[in-house]
């Protein structure tokens, strides 16, 4: 670290617990290095708060290298901050200017209740996955390589959809708090592969039903999710989910 750092005003959402009303609190943070990541900046804030005998700001994080999907944060009204295809942990303070006021809010959705401060409960995503986001395979010997041909384009589509890290930025950025991008990515990664075909109808019906039950909104095709997604998941997956759903309703034996 060299030279004079930035002086920032942080406007942070503080909420002692799920039942607490919550409010914004302002913190002045001086001499912030532009080389810090956003979460490191919050670490510095928390160390200072602890020294002062105040409660540190609770926020989710784990790998800090953009792959685990634990970090979140609405930064100045943008999920994971201003950069595209970047998680909060990969966002650096050089994106901000000396004297800036930064507003930090938790994801806001009925299906993501706030646990404390900036930490929200995203287990609703886990329940959507449990409803059908898997392939049932009997254990046994590994099959011969290449006995199940998969065209390269399909591999790529599945891989692109599987890039989803389940962080919930799509829900946070959507004006309807819809989880369609997440659910569609999880449906797509299996629907385009032969291993996922046998359960595809049941999968899409159950996952959509669970998504609705969790209280997520519905998709109005604003594409805000795609722009906010740190993994670059495309809304093409949402169209694929819609097709899968239509096919499952009209042609499959599910729900007879």
């Amino acid at each position, binding site marked *: 670290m060299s030279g004079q750092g930035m002086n920032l005003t942080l*406007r942070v959402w503080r909420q002692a617990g799920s039942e607490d009303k919550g409010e*914004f609190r302002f913190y002045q943070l001086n001499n912030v290095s532009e080389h810090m990541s956003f979460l490191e900046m919050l670490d510095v804030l928390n160390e200072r708060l602890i020294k002062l005998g105040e409660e540190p700001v609770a926020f989710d994080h784990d790998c800090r290298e953009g792959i685990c999907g634990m970090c979140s944060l*609405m930064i*100045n*009204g*943008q*999920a994971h901050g*201003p950069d*595209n295809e970047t998680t909060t942990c990969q966002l650096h303070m050089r994106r901000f200017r000396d004297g800036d006021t930064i*507003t930090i*809010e938790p994801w*806001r*959705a*009925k*299906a993501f209740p706030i646990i404390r401060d900036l930490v929200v409960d995203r287990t609703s995503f886990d329940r959507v996955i449990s409803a059908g986001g898997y392939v049932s395979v009997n254990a046994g010997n590994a099959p011969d390589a290449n006995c199940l041909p998969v065209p390269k384009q399909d591999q790529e589509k599945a891989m692109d959809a599987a890039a989803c890290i389940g962080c919930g930025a799509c829900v946070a*950025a959507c*004006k*309807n*708090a*819809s989880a*369609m991008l997440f659910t569609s990515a999880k449906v797509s990664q299996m629907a385009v592969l032969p291993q996922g075909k046998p359960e595809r109808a049941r999968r899409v019906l159950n996952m*959509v*039903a669970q*998504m*609705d039950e969790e*209280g*997520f*909104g*519905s*998709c*109005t*095709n*604003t*594409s*805000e999710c*795609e*722009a*906010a997604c740190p993994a670059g998941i495309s*809304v*093409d997956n*949402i*169209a*694929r*989910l*819609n*097709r*899968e*759903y*239509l096919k499952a*309703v009209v042609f499959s034996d*599910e*729900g*007879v």
Partner: protein
Amino acid sequence: MNWLRCALSSSVGKKFLMAITGLALCGFLVVHLAGNLLLFAGAEAYNAYAHKLHDNEDLLHVAETGLALIFFTHLYLAFKLSAENRIARGRGYAESQSKRENLISKVRPETWMLVTGLGLLAYMLLHLADFTLEFRDTSHYEGLEPFDKAVSLLTDPISVVGYLAGFAFLFAHLSHGISSAFQSLGLNHPKYNAVIKWGGLGFALALALGNASLVFWAQGQ
């Protein structure tokens, strides 16, 4: 038929119905505008069309009932989905900014669908009050042929302003509505995505300008 009820009451199913009814209403608008463009062909052609249409009173009632059903489904779902979506968000953000790039305009019609839809509804009520229900002062076109009635109504100052505003709402609503409907129906493919996007926008513009042209034309009559 439990499976059908289940499917249509799911979030995806409701968006499906929204898309189908929306596109059906667009179909009606095309036919309606095509008929009205006969105003350009002169009084004789327009009157013949209007009389022919109203000769089949029974058939017209069936068509109107169907149209009303489609319309009210679209309207009901609009309110229901908006209410559900508001609940799904819960407490909103203090600050919110789009991360989308290459936006055509800062004003994003996709975030104003309920408002533009309500604007369209207001226009439609005025339009029905004028032509079908004849709620407003009818003295200046009493006993006139359809062509003259249309010209008389289209030169009424309230109608001129209300209709042009309505067509602006129509453009805003459809500029997102058409492509959104295709996406909701799962019709998305790199081969024809551009056609849907720009075609939808062009269709919205053509409908709005086509309708507006009738209002401007009437001022010169």
